[in-house]
């Protein structure tokens, strides 16, 4: 009887290329085909019944599952060393689907206040319409999460590498707090990608991604995903009736009992995608999958370029501060060494002297960097969060989220690093000398 654990997953690069992507069994096509179809035929009435009852594996309708999309799901699950994944039309949709499986009306969750501004808005305003409520905490002290947990709390949500503040959350103690409370820790791993950090290794239970960013990498396709570790015991308490009680939306089927360690993933497709509809298109799944094949090469270059740009900015006289955890000056440098030893990502912020006007002047002076609202592109990107992505927040929320008036956010791409630095140098020069106009500078 061989009972010693012997399974060693193939390397990250191998999984990025091959997981979920065996040759097509019917045609032998080596790359995953784009199954651009809404529906799939049934063999007979009995086969149809088995599929609708979830008694057999197979495809019905692409709102629920699709072969191209499931190939991507398996690939992402493999990269995160998770049990399964559900792909969605965007990162926001992934968050909606994750909470739809976990939450009942009146439930709460605790979230880091250092999140992408769009997440803060989604959690604060749109989730309220489902009667779901969020309690934001400062994530730099893990105990803040514990203090905010109530009997109605069903999850802890955090970004491990926060957008845009350059803050790294100490996942290990936060996951311990979630475990003690009997609730899952959900980590948004968009900024790090599984190449830089694998949150399941640090006790996370669910990982969400905006695949629109580094996973796709090309800025050509939107997508999101929720990955399930398979290790959370939903049955340990009565907090998750959607997984542990017979589901009236599925003729009394109990998802956790029937599907075991991939009960969450199954419910996310069979109920959340079915009833909410934020499905990923096969075309976008294909594009994202193509991007993922080169994730390791791209991320290595992203962090190399970001480190060089951060070091340049730190030495620039027009820059008041740089918040990049890869710099020794960062208060998060030690956490970066622990959680992101290969590099602290390629999205970070810095402050320009002169505040709001200089920030605006900066983004309007770049020629190579693109002024737009996205991250994780091959192209280097720049944005002034206070006037764009974090505009909907209050001034107080903006500062708390690391998006104060002088803050400029960069997403460093894969261009020649000297060219990125030269463009920032000339833009800083212009922003300082004439932030708005020559006339205004003279006054």
């Amino acid at each position: 009887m061989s009972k010693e654990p012997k399974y060693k997953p193939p390397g990250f690069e191998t999984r990025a290329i091959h997981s979920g992507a065996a040759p097509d069994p019917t045609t032998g096509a080596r790359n995953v085909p784009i199954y651009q179809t809404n529906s799939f035929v049934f063999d007979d009435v009995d086969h149809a019944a088995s599929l609708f009852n979830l008694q057999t594996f197979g495809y019905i309708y692409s709102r629920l599952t699709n072969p191209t999309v499931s190939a991507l799901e398996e690939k992402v699950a493999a990269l995160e060393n998770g049990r399964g994944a559900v792909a969605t039309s965007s990162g926001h949709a992934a968050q909606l689907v994750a909470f739809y499986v976990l939450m009942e009306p009146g439930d709460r969750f605790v979230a880091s206040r250092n999140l992408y501004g769009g997440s803060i808005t989604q959690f604060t305003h749109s989730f309220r319409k489902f009667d779901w409520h969020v309690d934001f905490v400062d994530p730099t002290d893990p105990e803040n999460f514990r203090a905010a947990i109530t009997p109605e709390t069903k999850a802890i949500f955090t970004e491990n590498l926060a957008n845009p503040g350059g803050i790294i959350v100490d996942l290990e103690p936060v996951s311990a707090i979630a475990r003690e409370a009997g609730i899952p820790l959900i980590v948004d791993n968009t900024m790090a990608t599984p190449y830089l950090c694998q949150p399941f290794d640090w006790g996370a239970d669910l990982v969400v991604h905006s695949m629109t960013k580094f996973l796709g990498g090309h800025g050509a396709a939107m997508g999101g995903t929720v990955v399930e570790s398979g290790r959370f015991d939903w049955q340990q308490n009565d907090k998750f009736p959607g997984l542990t009680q017979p589901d009236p939306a599925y003729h009394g089927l109990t998802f956790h009992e029937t599907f075991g360690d991939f009960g969450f993933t199954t419910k996310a497709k069979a109920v959340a995608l079915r009833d909410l509809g934020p499905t990923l298109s096969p075309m976008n799944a294909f594009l994202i999958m193509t991007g993922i094949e080169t994730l390791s090469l791209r991320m290595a270059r992203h962090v190399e370029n970001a480190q060089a740009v951060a070091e340049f900015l730190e030495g620039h006289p027009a820059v008041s501060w740089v918040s990049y955890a890869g710099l020794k000056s960062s208060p998060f440098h030690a956490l970066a060494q622990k959680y992101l030893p290969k590099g602290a990502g390629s999205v970070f912020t810095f402050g320009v002297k002169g505040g709001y006007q200089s920030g605006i002047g900066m983004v309007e002076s770049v020629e190579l960097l693109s002024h737009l609202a996205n991250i994780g592109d091959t192209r280097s990107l720049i944005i002034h969060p206070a006037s764009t992505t974090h505009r909907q927040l209050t001034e107080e929320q903006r500062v708390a989220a690391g998006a104060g008036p002088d803050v400029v956010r960069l997403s460093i791409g894969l261009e020649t690093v000297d060219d990125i630095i030269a463009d920032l140098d000339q833009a800083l020069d212009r922003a300082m000398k004439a932030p708005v106009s020559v006339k205004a500078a003279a006054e």
Partner: protein
Amino acid sequence: MNELYYPDWLIRRILRETDTIAMVGLSANWNRPSYFAMKYLQEKGYRVIPVNPRAAGSEILGELAYASLQDIPEKIDMVDIFRRSEQVGPIVEEAIAVKAPVVWMQLGVRNDEAAAAAEAAGVTVIMDRCPKIEYGRLSGELGWSGINTRVITSRRSKRIRAA
């Protein structure tokens, strides 16, 4: 307890060489996991014989249910156990008595003592796994649900057995 590990080739061999499965503790209720497993395995060409004292004499999915393994008049290739871990012992003794070459305990079911007894009698034992999920995993069908099958292959066919 140490983590259970079974190499893929072993699971594949069992699933390929098995024709008739006796399912102990099979439920006649359509939305129970055991019913799901039986229906799926039938579709893959296996003969599945229900063993459940309460259902004995009635038919489940077209198969006559028996009260015990000894009552089954045919040769059994695998005994698949849907019972709580502490109730497994006597079933394994029966499985040894009817000379079933494989004893398979379902997901969440594990009894190391019973397993050791079976292995001493030359029986191959799998614990805490589901044959439906393993069949789906190794055939690639589980990946259709976005589940990580851990199977990486450059080969086209992953057929486990002729249906």
